[in-house]
């Protein structure tokens, strides 16, 4: 892993939480609020639970429309799994829908926090900036969606390179790629801005940000962590999710691409929780330091 960028010693040595010390001293009074850790925690809980729910239970909707025939087998699976594996494509469609809605909602929060902690200046400046950002919401949303779709096509190609069939199963492979793209790049694209191929400074900065986060794995604060950890978790989970495919257990859920998909979702959830725990640890440490300082002041 590339070495983390060294911060000036004067600032907080804990690279997690945005502190007042990090702000230019002249504007110390208007420094942003400390990161809303409590709300973040509850949202991560809701988000990950909903994600798990949509992965397991949304596909059950299939059984409302189609009468799923009982499989003749000496190894019956749980009805939940039977429905899930009955038609992988239908299950993937349901999951993709759920993931799309959930990620849109989640990305909204991420984007808000991202701009909150990034904005500098006086109160009035920040207000103006915020209104501009919320005006650009829909345009950005569109751009992020288009970017996500583009990435899903790239993912599709990559999944095929990893060994997915070339001439068949394209609906399966594509839906997997789409879900992967929504889990990995949608929220960052909505907040950081999508990657562009231009030669201008803005493109350059975006490129720098993206590579710093997703290639060098060096997120600097809670928000970046909340973007990076789940994305990495998704891809790693998907990679490991391939393993059950090869086992000769002869189970219905081993159908392509269910194991990598569930690996990805589990990876996302673990990544999300990992980000939460890391931020939590930093946050507690920061609180500790702050209370120390308070105690010394009162003395």
């Amino acid at each position, binding site marked *: *892993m*590339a070495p983390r960028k060294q911060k000036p010693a004067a600032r907080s040595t804990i690279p997690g939480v945005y502190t007042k010390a990090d702000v230019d001293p002249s504007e110390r009074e208007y420094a942003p609020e400390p990161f809303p850790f409590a709300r973040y925690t509850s949202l991560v809980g809701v988000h990950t639970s909903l994600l798990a729910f949509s992965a397991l239970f949304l596909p059950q909707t299939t059984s409302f429309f189609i009468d799923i025939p009982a499989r003749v087998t*000496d190894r019956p699976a749980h009805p939940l799994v039977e429905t899930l*594996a009955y*038609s*992988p*494509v239908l299950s993937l469609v349901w999951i993709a829908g759920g993931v799309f809605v959930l990620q849109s909602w989640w990305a909204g929060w991420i984007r808000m926090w991202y701009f909150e902690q990034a904005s500098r200046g006086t109160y009035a400046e920040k207000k103006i900036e915020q209104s501009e950002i919320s005006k650009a919401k829909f345009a950005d949303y569109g751009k992020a969606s288009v970017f996500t779709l583009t990435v899903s096509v790239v993912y599709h190609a990559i999944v*095929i*390179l*990893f*060994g997915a*069939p*070339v*001439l*068949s*199963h394209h609906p*399966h492979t594509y839906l997997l790629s789409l879900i992967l793209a929504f889990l990995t790049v949608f929220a960052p694209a909505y907040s950081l801005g999508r990657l562009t191929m231009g030669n201008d400074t803005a493109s350059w900065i975006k490129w720098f940000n993206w*590579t*710093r986060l997703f*290639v*060098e794995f060096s997120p600097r604060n809670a928000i970046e962590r909340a973007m990076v950890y789940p994305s990495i978790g998704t891809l790693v989970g998907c*990679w490991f999710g*391939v393993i059950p*495919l*090869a*086992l*000769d257990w*002869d189970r*219905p859920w*081993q*159908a*392509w691409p*269910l194991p990598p998909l569930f690996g990805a979702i589990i990876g996302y959830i673990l990544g999300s929780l990992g980000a939460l725990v890391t931020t939590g640890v930093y946050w507690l440490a920061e609180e500790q330091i702050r209370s120390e300082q308070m105690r010394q002041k009162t003395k």
Partner: protein
Amino acid sequence: MNVSVLLWLLALHGLSIYLFLSGFLLSRIALPDVSPPLSDSTRSLVQTHKRAVIVVLDALRYDFLAPLGDTIPSPHDPYYHGVLSTPARTAAEHPDRSIVFSAHADPPTTTLQRIKALTTGSLPTFVDAGANFGGEAIGEDSWVLQAEKAGKKLGFVGDNTWLALFPGAFDPSLTWGYDSFDVEDLHTVDNAIFSRIPSLLNLTSTPSKSDPWDILLAHGLGIDHAGHRFSPSHTGMQAKLSQTDTFLATLVDLLDNDPMHKDTLLVVMGDHGMDEHGNHGGDAPLETIAGTWMYSPTPFLASSSDRENVPAQMHEETLFPGALAPHRHTQQVDIVPSISLLLGLPVPFGSLGAPIPELFALRPHTSVGAGSALAVASSLSATQIHTFLDKAGMSGLDALDEAWDPRVGGLAAHLAPEAFPRSAYTAPLSTSEELDVSLAIGSRHISRALARDAYAYSREALRAARARWAQFDGPLMVVGLVSAFLAVVVAGALFWQLGLDSPAASRPGPSIGAVPKAGGEDAEETSPDTPTWLRKSVLRAWQAMGAGVVLGVQLWGAFKVLGRIDTFALSGESPTRMGVLHFAALGAAWASSASMLASCFSSSTATGDARIEGPKSSPTLLQKFTRFFSVFTFEAAIPVALMILHSLALLSNSFVIHESLLVPFLLITAPLPFLMRTISSARRDLRRKALFWAGVYAVCVRLIGTGRVWREEQGVFFGLGPHSSVSPSDGPFIVETLLSVIPNWLPRILNALAPLATPVILSYVLQTSRSRVPFIVRAALPASLALASLTWLIEDSTAGAGADSAIGGVARIVRTLCAWTSAVLGAGGIAAWATQPLCISVSREAPTDGAKAGEKQTITVLGFANASGAPVLVFQALLLAPLALCALLPSQRVGPLLFGALVGWFELVDAARDARALDANPVGAANALASAIPDTHSYTSSPSTQLQPPASQSSTSSGPRIALAELFPLALLGLHAFFGTAHQATIASIQWRAAFALSARVRPGISHLCVAINELGPVFWATAGAVGLAVWNVSPRIQVKVPRSALNRAKSGGGEGATREGKDAAVEAENGDHEESTEVLRAALGPLIYLSVLFLAGAVGAAVLRRHLMVWKIFAPRAVAGALWLIAADLGAVIGVWSARRIGREVKRVFG
């Protein structure tokens, strides 16, 4: 010296493979000899039946057909005890016509091995050494072949394994074969048997067809599949058994009621048993106890009144697990002489069983006295065993010689002099003994004694043969695994130590003028391209190998004297059969590994390697360890993690089966760290370069994957899950889909044209560094490749025409001609390369300034920056020609794809190295890059060779050491190409057609070489290519500051003649070469480390899971494949290092 290291490593690998495989593989010589037919008089003594119906019910355990009672466990299981009741019922009703007993099946209790034992009477082996070239057909004598030879008509219904084992033995009009793989299908095969066998029996009573068949064979799979699927204690098994019972009852009815069948023998037997879960393959008592039932419409068995004819020793009994009373027990191999002799056929040549006494003790319908038939049958069989063991090189064992009674041989020789010429194997008989023998036919007393002696000898022989052939040898396997582990450690230590030790790791800055160590003679001996410690330690390792042999032999002698060897055994297994050769190999492997390890870890830099003076020359242990752990970065961890995953995968049958999917998955993962390194680089051109070449690499890898074939076990699975809604397609299915759309000649033509892409790729890549491919190579390479693929195009399109037809004959001649031309051209290309490997072109320009003409001129060297890398690539392209010559037509496209992947990998790694250099030293590296991009060098020179090396030189060539992450994918690439050329790690997938690439018939040597190249070429090729990573885009170091003559003088040690400056230059030149050569060796070691770890993992998997159901189908072939790949890689590394050495010499000649 580098080559010597690799040869030593090859020897080490060979020793560990030898040790492991001789403990693991059941090896046995399969002799092609066939027993001559019985004489008429002898036949009349033993034959009881004219016809036979032989029904093999797969996995029919003894208790399935045993009578209810104390001989089977109680309480009885209602699902399988007493359900198949016909055998027990008839045996109770007609003890002179029906007999039930159990037969011991030798492990592995797998169907294929059992069928071989049930027909040849021999013990199982993994590979029947000496079997004919290709095919699974049984090459040994068997009663099936004897019946065929005797002109009997054989019919068959059931598992088609038999048809592959005995091609042509069964009458096509009486043959119905079914696939045995689908375990879910309980009924197809059985139903076919249940309906066809009775109707075939009825045929005999049709007057028009008096003799429609002589032997009917059936092999039903229902009971086995029911066991696998449900386990025995299940209604499914009950249904299957009762269905089978109905069938058997029908057979009994038919035989009893049709007078035509009074000469028909019915044999029903299991090939093995099953455990409580319904599985088999191992040696558990339940798996090895097969049930057998024999039935005849006419009496042929010894009834209780005849018991006295059977010596008590011949009546073996055993206790079924959990039962209270013993039951009659035989060996499965006993069935072979029994069936043979009952049908009047000779005992098959390799048979190791003894005739079952009950079957021969009663002869009411012959004129001979009771009991004599038993003596005759036993003597014939025992003498047959004696002859066979003699031929198989197993005579001379004390116990066997003691058990041998010459009178047995005498009787057999008397009866069948053509089969057993008396002088050949028996001691001469005295006259009285002669008399005894001739009396044996009439005398009950003598015949009893002869039968007993013959039986005792047969059993002793079986015991000896089992000890020799059919046992895993635990201690030997462990010794082999330890040796393989040591080989891995040694290779790793060498790689690591060379990385630490190479001067570039601590490249001298300004203090270039180091002086060689005072000991001048030492420096003189030093080969200029190898560190002294390595040279010495290789020499020592070879010596240690020799000393180890002596030590091993002494150790063996000591143990032999103490009598301890027999005590070495894994718990519950038979004692080891380690011999003096094994001890010698063990001593050699361990001693030389220890010697090399000691050299690596001792203070190697102190052994006269004083290139650099200063504190760095001998790092402390702590420093070494910190350096060792500093290797474990994210970039280095990924390939190691992949290797560990790959190794763990070999412990699971699922992943071994799907290894052809696993390997490309790992291959596509491997470039990740390199891509990440370049993507985060600030240089756009580097990013583009990396992305482009990574794409080329990945696409080539993926396309190689389209050439896979699926293993039998992969079935309908194809890695996509068994319940996919759409039928998955890849590999052969792609071809099928394409064929349905496009004319079927198109893919053939495309495959045939594909090899021509290799020269195109080659010139495209070399163009960026302005390297020039020598003309001869440019001409020979495409021609050789084109002719190779033309050979296979002809082979493919005339495959239908027989060699005796006109078209076939002409095609064969043309094809042979093409192939030989291609081979000669390929060899010529390589020879041309060896004489002039470099791809540079030099142009001299006259100085523009006229005044000093002759003093200064500009020399431009095109292709300088990649002067060593480009020839490696050319060499790799040339090596593809023999590969193409031995690859079948569909695999022709793999060559260029493999080449593309290799090139892509080189360039990707190169980009990542540049990016890393930029990270480390932005300014210097940027300059270096900028000057490297034109890839030409111009410099001015004076006639006195005062060459000025470009300023950027050192920074370009002193990049970071070569990493395992860069090398491991090449090992994987070789494996991937193995799978991509339609191979699998199975014996069945060997492409024997390649044997006929150069000749119409098998020519020992050439044909074997062709098959070996076909199988192992890709792994060899990829490993040979690894050295390219050590020299790719590394331009030669121009260090000479003095005339060559001075340099030579300095090197030749003429101390007084050489100036100080000359000495310095010599040292410097040595260092430069040394560095490159060390890196080359490390590059060659990389893939070897991967493949030796893989071999170790495969061997451990096979050893640990040797009782696994699938060991002979999956783990054993995988272990053998791993060994072969390792050897191929070792040879590839040698060739690669040789090529790099050749290039290095040439570079030194031109630039030095």
